[in-house]
């Protein structure tokens, strides 16, 4: 599903340059649920941006779902993100003046789905995450866990092949964190690849595989099952 070969990425800030990704090689199969771990500054967020086609890379090769992703213009990138990728963020990133239903329906708006139809679909997804009764509430009226569930419903509605979650539990207490992870696991069981960036060990232990990134390269590649057997 995702293949990264020798990916390099350098940021230029004024006259300084920061070489963040120094040749990342990574392979993620379809239907996997993996976590990417690393200390801050290790490049894990940059890696997620590259995978999410939110940022381009300087050198190497990135193949997403059999397609080489390189030099896309903004419009192409936007369409690909819309169709293949779903995002879940630490800070939820819901649009504050839209209610839960409208937030969930937004990706379908960008696919050109008619309002009535997309609201029906959005309601189904809200139901799936257990928030049918909260459809008309604004994000400010929801708890952290509820917001994240809305965000997950929004990520799922476009039927993506990959869910990218950047610290999805970072702003949640441990009980809610577990609920969110359960939900992501359910998503994964429908065949969607799930990639979670986290720095919490407990959270990473709930995925199939942990990829540890150190200083812009892949450090370790740990199969969680084996870890548990030990």
């Amino acid at each position: 599903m995702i293949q990264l070969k020798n990916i390099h990425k350098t940021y230029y800030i004024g006259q300084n340059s920061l070489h963040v990704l120094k040749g990342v090689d990574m392979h993620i199969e379809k239907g996997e649920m993996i976590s990417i771990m690393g200390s801050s500054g290790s490049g894990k967020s940059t890696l997620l941006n590259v995978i999410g086609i939110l940022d381009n890379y300087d050198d190497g090769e990135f193949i997403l779902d059999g397609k080489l992703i390189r030099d896309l213009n903004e419009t192409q990138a936007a369409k690909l993100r819309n169709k293949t990728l779903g995002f879940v963020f630490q800070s939820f990133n819901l649009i504050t003046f839209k209610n839960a239903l409208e937030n969930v329906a937004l990706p379908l708006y960008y696919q050109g789905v008619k309002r009535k139809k997309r609201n029906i679909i959005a309601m189904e997804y809200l139901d799936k995450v257990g928030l049918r009764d909260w459809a008309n509430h604004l994000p400010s009226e929801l708890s952290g866990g509820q917001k994240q569930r809305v965000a997950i419903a929004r990520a799922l509605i476009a039927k993506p092949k990959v869910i990218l979650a950047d610290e999805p539990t970072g702003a949640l207490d441990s009980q809610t964190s577990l609920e969110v992870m359960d939900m992501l696991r359910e998503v994964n069981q429908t065949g969607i690849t799930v990639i979670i960036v986290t720095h919490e060990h407990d959270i990473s232990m709930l995925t199939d595989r942990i990829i540890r990134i150190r200083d812009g390269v892949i450090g370790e590649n740990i199969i969680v099952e084996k870890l548990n057997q030990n």
Partner: protein
Amino acid sequence: MFDLDKWQEIFATIRKNKLRTFLTGFSVAWGIFMLIVLLGSGNGLQNGIEYQFQSDATNTIWLHPGSTTMAFKGMKPGRQINFTNEDYTFVKENIPGIEEISARYYFWENRIISYKKQFGSFDLICVHPDMQVIEKIVIDQGRLLNQVDQQRNRKVVIIGLPVKEALFKNGENPLGEYIRVNGVPFKVVGVFTDRNDRDQQRLYLPISTAQMIFNGGNKIHNLTISTNISVKESEALEQTLRTKLAKLHRFNSEDKSALYIGNTIKEFKQFQNMFMGIKLFVTVIGLFTIIAGVVGVSNIMIIVVNERTKEIGIRKAIGATPWSVIFLIIFESVIITAFAGYIGLVSGIGLLELVNKFMPASDFFRSPEVDFNIAVAATLVLVFSGMLAGLFPAIKAARIRPVIALRDE
């Protein structure tokens, strides 16, 4: 572009940010309001003065004899020049292209007018029938003076409406009644009105009758001709008249105070030019007011885009294309400016209508109005400026990288 869904998305955004929308719209509404009021007042000013101007014909040349200031052929300066009926005939026969011509004979004193026990003092002006056209008087009752009155020295008079009101206090019909002018009975044959109120406080008498009855001899005080020629031609005509009359009355044709010449053709043109200038000035001010409004909207939209950076980033992360973001911002701006502009337009026109209705027309201000084309043009300018106001912020918004949205606060 006319996808209902897109509009709904924009309206939803506008509805949920009411204060922002109001503040954005206000500057535009104010700009258009000012433009309309300015243009309307400009027109009102012009209408007022034009109305005054049009109380008399605007294609006339007036000739007033004066006294010489230069010696001429052995005659000393300070000699009084007098016009007589011969000058009237001379000008009438020697100047081509004259439409109307009339002499005037005034009474400077003893202007007592009476009817039964009512007395009044009004301007007595003795004229040829043509003067009624030049003065643009309008008959309210009866008839104008005519050639037959003139030829037969009839003792008839037409009186202004205020004169009628002053003398015929009991509401009698003045037609056919005799009023006394300095003791001599004259038959009222007409009542007239004139746009210029001062020109209504008058009586017009046939000049031939007046000369005969009031010992005027063949003396006249001035001459007026009307003619349909251009400003340039009228200046040439002035010169011709000056030369010919100088020869006839034997004064130096360079001696301006021997003969005063008024030229309303030239004055009217100057007046029109002045108003073109005022109109241009008012339009430019109005346009700058709109531009200020557009800059205001643009500024606010830039702030809005900054505020919405995160939202736009989120939208882009979940699949918004740069074009859809541009559309969102530009059309939000267009809708706000168009709507606010419309409010400004309507309230501006409303104010002008109120002024028109409740403020009495004066010499300087009358029926302020904005013509329909200008209103339509202003609306188009608005929609266009809304686009312009949204353009730069929209481009800025389209350039926002979705990575920003990922960044945690």
